[in-house]
């Protein structure tokens, strides 16, 4: 990923920030200047809750370029405590133990490394709540 592209989204990757619309109340994990739901520009940054549960998941055995060394790994569609949904890897767990409804919490991890000269990308993943 290019540095400017990564840099723009750091508030989301590092702090799980998203956008809330003051016109229609729509909350999204995306960083946006215009509400994707109603088109209003009266929006504010918001921090999303760090805990939630697994809504759906998959175990990736054929990863895209850049993720080979994690193979296999679990991707979860997580429903956060406020109802917002978000994607992320589920770690520190045997893939066989992941189930729909599993309670998870955000954790800060290394996501991927862009070859020898590219940037190291960090961000959130999720792990089971013990």
């Amino acid at each position, binding site marked *: 990923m290019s540095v400017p592209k990564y840099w723009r989204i750091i508030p989301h990757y590092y702090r799980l920030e998203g956008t809330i619309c003051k016109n229609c109340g729509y909350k999204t994990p995306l960083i946006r200047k215009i509400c*994707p739901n109603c088109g209003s520009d009266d929006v504010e940054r918001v921090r999303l809750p760090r805990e939630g549960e697994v809504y759906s998941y998959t175990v990736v055995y*054929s990863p895209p370029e850049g993720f080979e060394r994690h193979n296999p790994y679990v991707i979860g569609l997580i429903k956060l405590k406020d109802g917002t949904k978000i994607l992320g890897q589920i770690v520190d767990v045997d893939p066989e133990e992941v189930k729909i409804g599993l309670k998870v919490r955000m954790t800060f991890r290394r996501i991927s490394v862009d070859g020898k000269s590219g940037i190291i990308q960090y961000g959130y993943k999720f792990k089971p709540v013990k």
Partner: protein
Amino acid sequence: MVSVYITGVGMTKIDKHWDTTVSELASEALRIALNEAGMESVDAVFVGNMLSGIVNSQENLASLVVSYAGLYGTPAFKVEAACASGAAAIASAFISLKSGMFKDVAVVGVEKMSDETSVEGITRALATAADSEYELYHGVSFTALNALIMQRYSYEFNVKPEDYGLWSIQMHKNATMNPYAQLRFEITMEKYLSSQWISKPIRFMDCSPVGDGAAALILSSKKPKDSPIEIAGVGMATDKFQSFLREDLLTLAAAKIAAKRAYNMANIRPEDIDMVEVHDAFTIMGVLSLEALGLAERGEGIELLKNGDIKPDGTIPTNLAGGLKARGHPVGATGVYQVAELSLQLRGTPVGVKLDNPNIGVALNLGGLASNCYVTVLKGE
């Protein structure tokens, strides 16, 4: 009001065409279609393609295709809507004829995937149909996004792996009769169930293959004398782009709206449809496509498989030429193959199993995770 007819069809066999370039492959299908229509030129060419920039390092593709086809001077457009690029090109061509600006145009869908030789490379290229910042960032492949849907569908409706297997088995069976299909062999349930995980619960045998192919159509606003096939309806719609923003992960909302729009334009109801070509890039998408077209309620698409309704002699013959699963899925070409197959079936000269006098065929082409959807309704005489 202008009507739009299909007057020529051309296809290449879907395969690994190592010795052909993306533009050359497109021009082959285009020349076949032109010959079939008995034409030497058209007013414009619409090229449907997704990956030429990434996989073939070639943009400005439409102009290059025109040069390969020996049609210098012809206006040309590349239309991109991920896996629905083919149908998006048809829709654009359709609109150009409806406007009255053009009288005869060509549509060619093309994808040359084998120029990318690594699995990780093509996986990454295909994944660009999803959001690079909020989805791909986490190591999500396009297959993984579909797997999230399949996992949830199986959970909510108690679907077993062997239920999905019925889809793959039927598609392979249909493809054995299609000379243009990529995978012309039958598979067994045992082979389906023992195929490797790509992104669990998606197995290798749930996935459409990687291949090269081009399909072309000549569209005209002049009604042909013999067996006119009319594009009677076109419907399109977009959905919330990212998987995690969908209110209902299990409904292809945009496909549903696109179908409603296309049916209204063609003045038909789901019960009137004689056959469909749906977008089974993965088996789960085949099932959800049937639901989106109004052929089954939410969660009941899988019953159409279990009851044998999707078979050539069933109530709703589906993907008679093998579908994406076995005909193949050269992404930007797929939507054009679908419509080409339906029009040959309506003419009575199908490339696959032959139906008895079908009159109405419907194609559904999905772009991305069904974030950009196109439905095309064809009517025979």
